[in-house]
């Protein structure tokens, strides 16, 4: 108690502006000290690698020693854009990647919204259902991959066995001829849990009067879903779509592991080339960099991908004014 009073007195006795100044400096010292680990991490694991990658994209670096590096100007970018105009690997891979991203974001959003809207009421066993839908998200990637390789196996897979009960003689080669579809199924399976949790919380934040009023007016549950739930959730859907697109265009590991091409063998290797239909843009970058040791060209492709991600994000944010409903209600307090 005595110490407190002394402390208070001593600050009072200091000249006002000097005391404030040194206090601010001290606070800044603490702030930047506490943030120092993250700032260092950002510098060394994000900023410096990005700059190095950017510089690398103007060279012929082959992964060996730095002595043989030569500055090649815009050659790598010229080659990449040349591919885009001549139906080269990079261009085909980019098309596949975009088609995968759009389909998979659409499919994931529709499934997650539907399940969330079914589970946001007071259905029996809804907590158990939520856990079951989240279960796939708990599994490590390698685990899910093995499960789906076995389920979708052409000869002895469970999916073909189930289809065989309905359509005898079914042997759909899921992982090879239907590889693109398999990848979308796999992604939807693992992605439902997280998206569902976010959408359930969003739906529970919608005032019940709105839905009740519509029901009283004779709207069916589906109409309520389409005309009230979805528009009111559109900011959330927008945010999830942006994240989904950023993740989708970078898809790399799942195509390699789930649908390895010929020579992939039974195991999973980082240098495996997936079947043609799942040869995505990031896979191409990986192949160019690590297998063909063209790190310079790979870096140029990476920066094209980065630019594409920025453009897609900006596009989504800009067009969001047309389809996202931002609630303006001065009477509602935040958190209500």
């Amino acid at each position, binding site marked *: 108690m005595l110490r407190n009073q002394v*402390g*208070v007195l001593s600050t009072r006795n200091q000249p006002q502006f000097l005391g404030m100044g040194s206090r601010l400096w001290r606070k*800044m010292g*603490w*702030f930047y000290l*506490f*943030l120092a*680990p*993250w700032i260092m*991490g*950002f510098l*060394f*694991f*994000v900023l410096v*690698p*990005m700059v*190095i*990658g950017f510089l690398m994209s103007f060279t012929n*670096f082959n992964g060996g020693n730095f002595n043989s590096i030569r500055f090649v100007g815009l050659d790598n970018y010229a080659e990449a854009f040349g591919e885009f105009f001549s139906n080269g690997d990079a261009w085909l891979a980019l098309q596949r990647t975009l088609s995968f991203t759009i389909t998979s974001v659409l499919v994931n959003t529709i499934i997650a919204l539907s*399940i969330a809207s079914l589970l946001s009421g007071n*259905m*029996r066993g809804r907590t158990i*259902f939520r*856990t079951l*839908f989240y*279960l*796939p*998200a*708990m*599994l*490590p*990637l390698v*685990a*899910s991959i*093995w*499960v789906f390789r*076995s*389920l979708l196996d052409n*000869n*002895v897979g*469970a999916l073909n066995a189930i289809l*065989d009960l309905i359509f005898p003689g079914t042997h759909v080669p899921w992982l090879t001829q239907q590889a693109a579809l398999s990848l979308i199924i796999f992604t939807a*399976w693992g992605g439902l849990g*997280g*998206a569902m*949790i*976010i959408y359930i*919380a969003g739906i529970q934040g919608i005032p019940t009067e709105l839905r009740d009023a519509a029901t009283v007016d004779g709207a069916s549950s589906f109409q309520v879903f389409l005309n009230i739930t979805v528009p009111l959730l559109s900011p959330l859907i927008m945010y*999830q779509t942006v994240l989904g697109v950023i993740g989708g265009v*970078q898809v790399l590991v799942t195509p390699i592991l789930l649908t390895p091409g010929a020579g992939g063998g*039974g*195991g999973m290797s980082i240098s495996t080339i997936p079947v043609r239909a799942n040869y995505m843009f990031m896979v191409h*970058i990986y192949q160019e*960099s690590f297998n063909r040791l063209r*790190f310079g060209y*790979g870096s140029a492709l*990476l920066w094209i*991908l*980065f630019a594409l991600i920025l453009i897609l*994000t900006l596009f989504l944010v800009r067009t969001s004014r047309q389809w996202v409903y931002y609630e303006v209600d001065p009477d509602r307090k935040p958190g209500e």
Partner: protein
Amino acid sequence: MNTDKFRRTLGSNLAFIITAIVAIIWVFPVVWLIISSLKLETELTRWPVVWFPETPQWGNYTQVLTDPRVGIINATINSLALSLMFAIPNVLVSALGGYAFARIKVPGRNLFLSLLLATMLIPYSVTIIPQFVVYAQIGLINNRLLWLLWGLGGSAYMIILFRQFYSSFPKELDEAAEIDGANPFAIFVRIYLPNSAAPLAVTFLFSFSGVWGDWFGQSLFLTSRNETLAMALATAFTNPMGRPVLTQTFAGIVLYALPLVVLYLLMQRQIVQGILTTGLKG
């Protein structure tokens, strides 16, 4: 009135049935994994499919655990070491950063907050390949210290999560402690850290499972000398004749996934809260 009630009951029953069917589809792969891990290899590779093993082959599990060629104990230790080396500093550093953003008001704070949010949009792929190139030059490949260094950098998502959490703490706590002569670090350690069990647990689980379940980073930056569970299980186990034994691989997969599933189930409530604060999905 009666028909209205009937329609509602019918509707909610229909909703229940639809949800149940989708749930069965969603859980089926996991059930298939567990059942397959108890089959004989000949049962797994037969057509028409054998749905249930004649006798559950618990031996698959003992085989995986004891076969020296699999080396599952070593791989478990490696996975555990990487996960802890990453998760513990990551959680502490992120909590400290979140505390700074929530409680220390200084010029430049908003600038750094914007920078933090912007980094969340930077794709990992743009940084990972240059990192590999640099580490290859300075001998950090196949070095487990990398995970410690990555962990020490904290995570933007988790800093945001702690910032949200600490913003709701009463300011009077700090003021009282400050008058007692405690510096901000002491306040963080004595008051904030002990009162953040829930976000600490969630961020720990997310960071831990992020490394435990990661296969790409480990196969890119490590060689078989430091083989982890993800790396070991990515290749099918083989019998002495060199033929793949999928049933035993599946047994290994069940053991590999089990700790994460148990942790997630124990911490469901906090996880939901964590997901909602950050938009991060585990």
